[in-house]
């Protein structure tokens, strides 16, 4: 195949992937604590290869006033116990499960000393994740700091490695974190992807028409 055709094919495919990524971030734009995926292109041989990288940066928080809503400011993910092992999540809307444990996304939250029982009384979370009810200490949330390339499971939860680094993020009770993808960026990304795709498609058209067309014509004349 013609070099230009190979390069443009890669360009079109990468552009499609980029659109998928921004569409997925948009679909999750009102999901608590959603983290955007940043995209990049890398040249591999003739073709641009598409790469994605999770942006674990801070999203803006908003006040809800609910005692079981938590936002983390700074680095840190809350650890939960799933049947498949420990997972880490950023969305902080807690529940109390039937056994009276604090839970998140349907799984018990992992405190520093195991599950945290809700107990009775006014629930308060300290900035360092200490949980108290009417002043009595119930436990402390375990926050972990994970690198952005930590693999995720099918639910999108981060798979906690054997010895994760502790995180120094601050826990804010009564707040939730929004997505860290600003709407402007998403809109520009959409537009830019579309233009990029059009440009690549147009270039492909020119290559196909002019270069290959001429070649075919010349070959035809010769015979």
């Amino acid at each position: 195949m013609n070099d230009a055709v190979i390069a443009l094919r890669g360009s079109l495919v990468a552009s499609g992937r980029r659109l998928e990524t921004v569409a997925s971030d948009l679909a999750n734009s009102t999901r608590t604590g959603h983290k955007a995926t940043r995209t990049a292109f890398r040249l591999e041989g003739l073709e641009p290869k598409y790469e994605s990288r999770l942006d674990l940066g801070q999203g803006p928080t908003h006040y809800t006033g609910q005692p079981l809503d938590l936002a983390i400011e700074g680095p840190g993910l809350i650890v939960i116990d799933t049947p498949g092992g420990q997972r880490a999540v950023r969305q902080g809307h807690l529940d109390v499960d039937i056994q009276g444990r604090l839970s998140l996304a349907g799984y018990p939250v992992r405190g520093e000393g195991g599950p945290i029982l809700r107990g009775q009384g006014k629930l308060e979370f300290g900035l360092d994740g200490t949980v108290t009810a009417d002043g009595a200490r119930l436990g402390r949330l375990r926050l972990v700091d994970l690198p952005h390339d930590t693999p995720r499971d099918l639910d999108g939860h981060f798979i906690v490695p054997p010895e994760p680094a502790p995180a120094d993020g601050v826990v804010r009770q009564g707040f939730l974190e929004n997505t860290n993808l600003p709407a402007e960026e998403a809109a520009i990304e959409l537009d830019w992807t579309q233009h990029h795709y059009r440009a690549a498609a147009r270039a492909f058209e020119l290559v196909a028409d002019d270069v290959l067309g001429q070649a075919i014509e010349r070959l035809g004349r010769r015979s």
Partner: protein
Amino acid sequence: MNRTLWVGASGMIAQQLNLDTIAHDLANVNTVGFKRGRAEFSELFASYQQAPGAPSADGNSPIGLYVGHGARPAAVRRDFSQGSLQHSGQPFDFAIEGEGFFAMELAGGRLGYTRNSSFQTDGQGRIVDNQGRLLEGDFNVPDDAEVVEVSSDGTISVTVDGVSQVVGQLLLSRFVNPQGLESLGGGLYGQTDASGDAVTATPGQEGLGRIRHGFVEQSNVSVVEEMVNMITAQRAYEMNARAVSVADEMLETLNQVLQ
């Protein structure tokens, strides 16, 4: 490429549910004891096109290629926080200040739990809600009661011919996980395996709230907050629709080129 259409559609479906929930809350802004809902979402099954550390042409790829498949509605969480109390002066209005539900007898013997706090008597000395459902408990309110008094711990006393007597005791129920309650409509909630068993006691005990006689509890819907949520949902819907139309135009471009 086609996936973008589905990813965008998943976002639009999620926002539709978000808007439905907000509309329902706004419709019930004046419903006594109504508790607002909040739609929550989770990420749809995401897959790795290429795992981090996978071999590539020049060594190992330092980062993976993670592609999400959109969002899906995960739950509508009921917000059981306190609604504001409004003075009504009615003798059988008992608002709960704090945690707890009144238990109502439903057809079939099941109990329905409610925060509706507006009651009346049914002529047989029993206390019923405006649909005629019986309030669980032992009450005997005489027809000729002149003054009805309800203390904060739920003791109901009436004055007949200048003589005061106790005619019943209100009980409240609470649950380990009220989020797990099943919505039965009409402001009633049913116990489920997820909510745990009801803990029933007199008001003020076991972490239960107290009774405010002559008050009704307003819905806990905040109109301003719902308006902001509605704008967010609408714009998010538009952005997702835009992603779908961009995907459509890209396919169109492709078809034109490959004619």
